């Protein structure tokens, strides 16, 4: 019996039904003047004319138009929109670098509990001891997982964590009477790294990748001097390879007084296996919406806590939740805090979800997550290597970057064509054309929650696509043909900008 094909794949979405292909009107097009859905509480508060309460110059003549629909039509509209949307719950989503693992429903239930969701962020500590305990427990768990001393939970997403980390880096050097202007970033890095470095007030020096797919050590050493505030690395890197020379890199950067920043986007590869703190990193952000399974919400919310080593801890944003001497919880602000980076305490409900996930798994379970994520990625790497060879042909970590260069040369089908054709097969596309240093890159991150049967089905689809490219490449260029819309005219969208319904009406006259 072939275990890989003895069961149907759970992660293939090709059987999902759609009725017709009529366009969905916007809610504004469905609007009928005088129709309504809202119902508000009976308050008994005496009505008064607004003109008595608000300065007359400020009041509008009529309310801002929204839309006027019935509750039934509202439900139909957004339900139909939801049917025009791929999601993890529907099928496999091997989008590299994004860690689209299954999001446990328990975490949603916890986040919806009134005792968490209905708490005002300005309520005093005495009335929010449960929330403070959650914040402290997550901070402690993340520090153990990363090998760090303390953390802030305020940053709302990975990029916000990066910028926070860079400001911490600056505060650290400044406290040492040091003004450093450069940050080193590998050419394979996520775009957020250089963008954050600019906002952090730094000039970016790009470090090339060598033929192994790793940081070029000679180039790194050549770039290092006492003007270097630090280096931003993700390890494993965006090519899915572990930076084997990390100890040497850390020593070299520390030698010139720089700090090491860890971009935690790829943390799902190393839980319980190796810790950034033990590798020599000083600052790390985590993406709770990747590694700790909080749902991505169509692009957000995330949460990007930043953990640091002891020598950076005094600069962390405040206030932060802490266990006080009497055993209760309260707020403290670190001695030399850089200040707030969030309007309140961070994306608290995301934090509660992540803690729930960590509690279910425990230390052993988290290691198992990474083991199986890496196992899945390597199995897929080898299984598809005939048509889609890995950019670096050896063991990868949690994701694999393959190249479609040869397929393109043989058939004219590009990586984007393969990605679009894969949608017809019922799978979400991999990340394409990233990292930028790899030609015709297709980056697959299957995650640990996809089954062997789903991986096999994905591989068979890729085989089918490669075969088809050789005999009927036009099918790939035309794909996708079975989706709610086909390839969209991106140039037109940019040329004739229609960012709102009102822009469209003005345009059509």
């Amino acid at each position, binding site marked *: 019996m072939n*275990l890989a094909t003895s069961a149907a794949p759970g992660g293939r979405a090709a059987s999902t039904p759609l009725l017709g292909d009529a366009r969905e009107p*916007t809610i504004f097009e469905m609007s009928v003047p005088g129709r*309504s*859905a*809202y119902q508000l*509480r009976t308050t008994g508060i005496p009505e008064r004319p607004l003109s008595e309460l*608000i300065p007359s110059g400020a009041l509008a003549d009529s*309310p801002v*138009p929204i839309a006027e*629909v019935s509750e039934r039509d509202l*439900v139909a509209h*957004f339900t139909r929109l939801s049917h*025009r*949307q*791929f999601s993890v719950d529907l099928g496999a989503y091997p989008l590299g670098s*994004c860690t689209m693992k299954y999001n*446990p429903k328990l975490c949603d239930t916890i986040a919806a509990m009134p005792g968490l969701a*209905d*708490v005002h*962020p*300005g309520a005093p500590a005495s*009335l929010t001891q449960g929330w403070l305990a959650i914040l402290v427990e997550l901070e402690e768990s993340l520090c*153990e997982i990363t090998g760090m001393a303390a953390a802030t939970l305020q940053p709302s*997403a990975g*990029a*916000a964590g990066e910028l926070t980390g860079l*400001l911490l880096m600056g505060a650290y050097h400044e406290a040492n009477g040091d003004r450093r202007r450069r940050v080193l970033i590998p050419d394979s890095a996520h*775009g957020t790294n*250089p*963008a954050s470095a*600019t*906002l952090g007030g730094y000039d970016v020096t790009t470090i090339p990748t060598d033929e192994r797919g790793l940081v070029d050590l000679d180039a790194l050493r050549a770039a290092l001097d006492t003007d270097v505030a630090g280096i931003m690395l993700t390890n494993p890197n965006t090519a899915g390879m572990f930076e084997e020379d990390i100890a040497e890199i850390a020593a070299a950067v520390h030698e010139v007084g720089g700090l090491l920043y860890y971009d935690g986007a790829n943390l799902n590869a190393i839980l319980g*296996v*190796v810790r950034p703190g033990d590798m020599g990193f000083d600052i790390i952000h985590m993406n709770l919406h990747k590694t700790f399974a909080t749902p991505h919400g*169509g*692009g*957000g*919310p995330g949460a990007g806590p930043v953990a640091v080593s002891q020598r950076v801890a005094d600069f962390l944003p405040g206030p932060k939740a802490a266990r006080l001497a009497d055993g209760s919880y309260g707020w403290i602000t670190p001695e030399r805090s*850089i200040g*707030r980076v969030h*309007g*309140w305490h961070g994306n608290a*409900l995301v934090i509660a979800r992540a803690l729930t996930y960590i*509690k*279910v*798994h425990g230390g052993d379970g988290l290691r198992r997550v990474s*083991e199986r994520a890496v196992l899945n990625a390597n199995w897929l790497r*080898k299984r598809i290597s005939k048509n889609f060879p890995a950019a670096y042909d050896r063991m990868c970590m949690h994701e694999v970057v393959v190249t479609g260069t040869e397929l393109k040369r043989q058939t004219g089908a590009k990586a984007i064509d393969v990605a679009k054709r894969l*949608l017809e097969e019922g799978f*979400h596309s991999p990340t394409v054309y990233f990292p930028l240093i790899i030609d015709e890159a297709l980056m697959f991150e299957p995650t640990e929650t*996809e089954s*062997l049967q789903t991986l096999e089905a994905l591989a068979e689809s890729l085989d089918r696509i490669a075969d088809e490219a050789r005999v009927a490449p036009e099918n790939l260029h035309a794909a*996708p043909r079975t*989706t709610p*819309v086909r390839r969209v*005219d991106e140039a037109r969208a*940019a040329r*004739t*900008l229609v*960012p709102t319904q009102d822009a469209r009406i003005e345009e059509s006259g």
Partner: protein
Amino acid sequence: MPDYTPHTDAEIDMMLGFLGLDSVEELFAAIPAALQVSGGLDLPQGIPEPDVAYAMESLAKLNTGGASSMVCFAGAGAYDHEIPPVVRALGGRSEFVTAYTPYQPEVAQGVLQAIFEYQTLVARLAGLPVANASLYDGSASVVEAINLAVSASRRAVVHLSAGVHPHWRSVVKTYARGTGHTIVDVPLVNGVSNFDAVAGGEAPGVVVVGYPTYLGTFEDLGDVRRHCDETGALMVVAADPIMASILKTPGSQGADVVVGEGQSLGTPLSYGGPYLGLFACTLEQVRRLPGRLVGETLDIEGRRAYVTTLRAREQDIRREKATSNVCSNQTLMAVVAAIQLGWLGTHGLAQVATRCVTATRYLSDQVTAIDGVTPLLPGVPVARDVAVTTPLDASVVLDRLADEGFLGGLALSSLTDEGDGSVDASVRDRTILMSATERRTRTEIDALAAALTKVVSR
């Protein structure tokens, strides 16, 4: 221990065999052994879901100040609004919840169209032609607005009104450590920014005001525009989206950028996050817009379609030259806002705004009728929030009100830094910021006033 991975032991063996490996440890051979964790992470053992649920429920029970257990008069940028079952049900649909950023538009039309509708609504409330697909929260939107305006004006001096939410002002100052912007605080006099107090300094490239201010007062946006015209600055207005429905739009009064906190549009109080950063601007500034923007276009068969556009502004393409570093935003909250606004409709939103104004005024009238309790700003019209000064320390008053079952508001001393220019130092410690939304009834407000009477006369 069960978890969310599907692998059977037999499958793991088979997969390892396929790779020519004997053990899972060999998967990590590239990691130097000396660096690897030995003995496992020092975390508690994993426990089954029902046990975790019990543990988390026990923690939630310790949050005795939740809006479901106390009557909430706390506002200050986070409000207890009605979120109906229909909005919760639609916003909780897993197609919206478990999708990623719409990088493949052919299979992301649901989120893309919902964002297009959201952008339309935010643009209308702002009175500006373009709105982005969301930022993290109100504070992040102010930071990004300042970055945009500094880039457009090429001047790094920021006139930041003390009427902007105090936490947002702190965040602005934190991020200015990196950008090097000069942040000049503009004090409030009678709830209005006093630009005379900062005259004579270097001309600003940006002026930021709150509308209403965090104390609930109204700036004269015409005056703010004149200050901008005199100095050549861009005008940034941090507006409340509920109040925006009944006020003249900031855009119609000359704002270049309108930002705000969108929590009021369908997102629960959530202990402060995830919230929703609103951001709208003029067409002139669209190429400096931070974050994602959805535009309408056609597919190859001529069908209407939506796609993220003007992508060359963004970090994944422009890297260190991007307009912002933002990648993940708050899309789900934006989708929820579109649903909540659809539920409220034109008249429902105006009704909510009107009820907030009348309820807050009724609240103000009832509590300031108490002997010793006075408005912080007597005779100044306020909406959304009202600051009242009591004879006692504000945190003592709030503690005693909590004993009576009320979350009475926020102590200004917990919200503001000393000497921040928004409130007189002599009364700061005794002042409470209160708010009543459309969910507060006359009975609740009367009961709060009775409790406050008891508290201050004790």
